[in-house]
């Protein structure tokens, strides 16, 4: 890992990383909540099932793990961002529902049950 030697290098790194994310925006992005509670309720199974299904369908999808998405009542949860669309949060998943999510929403953009309305504004630095 390259060391950051000046403050300017930190800012440059940030711009580069944001640029790389932009370049990647043509792919669907799946963000899987993997905090203690999400893992306990089966988040890892959901991630594995989704990866398996995207591979089976030959879809090019980017997966990332993140921490708590705050929706304990609906774990496991994932956020799916399709190119050019707003992120959508899906909850109450299991391996089976996760596969359906891939087949319907990620492949064809068709919404499935379990969408969680997001009631917050978030500070971005």
């Amino acid at each position, binding site marked *: 890992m390259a060391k950051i030697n000046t403050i300017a290098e930190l800012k440059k790194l940030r711009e580069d990383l944001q640029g790389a994310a932009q370049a990647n925006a043509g792919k669907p992005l799946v963000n899987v909540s993997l905090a203690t509670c999400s893992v306990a309720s089966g988040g890892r199974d959901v991630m594995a099932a989704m990866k398996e299904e995207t591979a089976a369908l030959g879809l090019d999808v980017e997966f990332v793990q993140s*921490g*708590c998405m705050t*929706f304990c009542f609906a774990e496991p949860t994932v956020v799916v961002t399709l190119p050019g669309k707003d992120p959508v949060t899906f909850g109450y998943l299991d391996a089976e529902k996760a596969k359906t999510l891939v087949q319907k929403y990620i492949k064809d953009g068709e919404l499935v049950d379990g969408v969680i309305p997001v009631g917050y504004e978030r500070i971005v*630095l």
Partner: protein
Amino acid sequence: MAEKKQLRIATRNSGFIDPENIDSYIAAGGYLGLAKCLGEMTPDQVIETMKASGIRGRGGAGFPTGVKWGFASKYASDDKYVVCNADEGDPGAFMDRAILEGDPHSVLEAMAIGAYAIGGNKGTIYIRAEYPMAIERLKIAIKQAEEKGVIGKNIMGTDFSFDLDIKYGAGAFVCGEETALINSMEGNRGEPYTKPPFPAEAGYWDKPTIVNNVETLASIPAIIVKGAEWFNGIGTETSKGTKVFALAGKINNVGLIEVPMGITLQEVIMEVGGGVRDGKEFKAVQTGGPSGGALTYKDLDVKIDYESLVACQSMMGSGGMIVMDQDDCMVSIAKFFVEFTMEETCGKCTPCRIGSKRIYEALDKITMGQGSLEDIEKLKQMSNAIKDTALCGLGQTMPNPVLSTMRVFEDEYTAHVVDKKCPAGVCSDLLEFVVVDDKCVGCTLCKRVCPVDCISGNAKEIHVIDQAACIKCGACLDKCKFDAIIKQ
């Protein structure tokens, strides 16, 4: 929810970034706050910014963070410490765990900012060993931050250096109290000591030390980047910014929320929280865990900030909110929390050690239907005496669940001792399970499920429960399909 009631500052990254990848944090503006401090601000300016922002400690007591930092900066010493208090222990609270698991770098960055501000160079995160995933992610974060050069020697090419390590707690509740925490970090028994000297003067290894809570720290990079005025513009006159709460208990949307200070309890419970589960009646919410108190249906219009909660005999606490409905008995709830404190008291001071035991015994007596009006008076007296005389925060706040439930639900206490009834139908010693004659069809289901064979009656005839033999397990009530058994 049409209008967005929540504002996420401390939890701005949790659920959005990969906590195990520092690049993910940097892409989200990570370490820009530290860079701004090192490049553009003097330590005094950082402290002034913290003071001007108005942020107060999110661990519970609400001491102004900038003032705390200001004290520590005044004492000259070779070493000064920044301690992150991650000893989260309130029943039903998990805000700090979520932040550490979802955004560990924000805490590291803030600790470095704190060290720069007070002229320190060392930091320690005190976390309980029962948070393995948070610990794992913190370790990864520290390693990556050191490799990147944002923590360690000569951060980002400046002459500021800051080293970090982790200390594990064994899960004693009192170790969240800062002096007990320092004792525990030094390898001593986790017992509090009297202040002064405050840790800002002589804390960890007798060096100037600031102890800050996880959530407080997580807000700090945002305050530095976006400015004190921005933060100061959110919240109420005395309580600025946002607060993270962990909603638990009988509420539909169990989970974490982050809301601006000054939001009403009504908005939190009914709108953000989605209302009480199963359409039941909202009764009360315990804030501040065992040190806090109950806000009730009468307090729905209370604006949530440090002062208003204290005015209701409760406290902000670290942010646990346990929601209770019509089926919860307030005496039992008070007993539950006092039992927790009784088990967690370190035993150093008499009011806390013996007082918690005596309060628990009185509450136990009342829930068993053996209490008297005199016991209620004694409870009040003991509670007030302990508040005034206990050594640390744990003891001083221990009677809060009793006093705050009595504030609105004294009639429930009275019902237990005078009428020998538990209005919520919880205290089993005060309950009777009886058959409603005109609903019983004589199906014999209850009779078959009763573990002590105390239900008699032939098929298609009305059944009878023998009250002397009944152990009040409630199995018959659960089994009956005709609502023919009630508890009263």
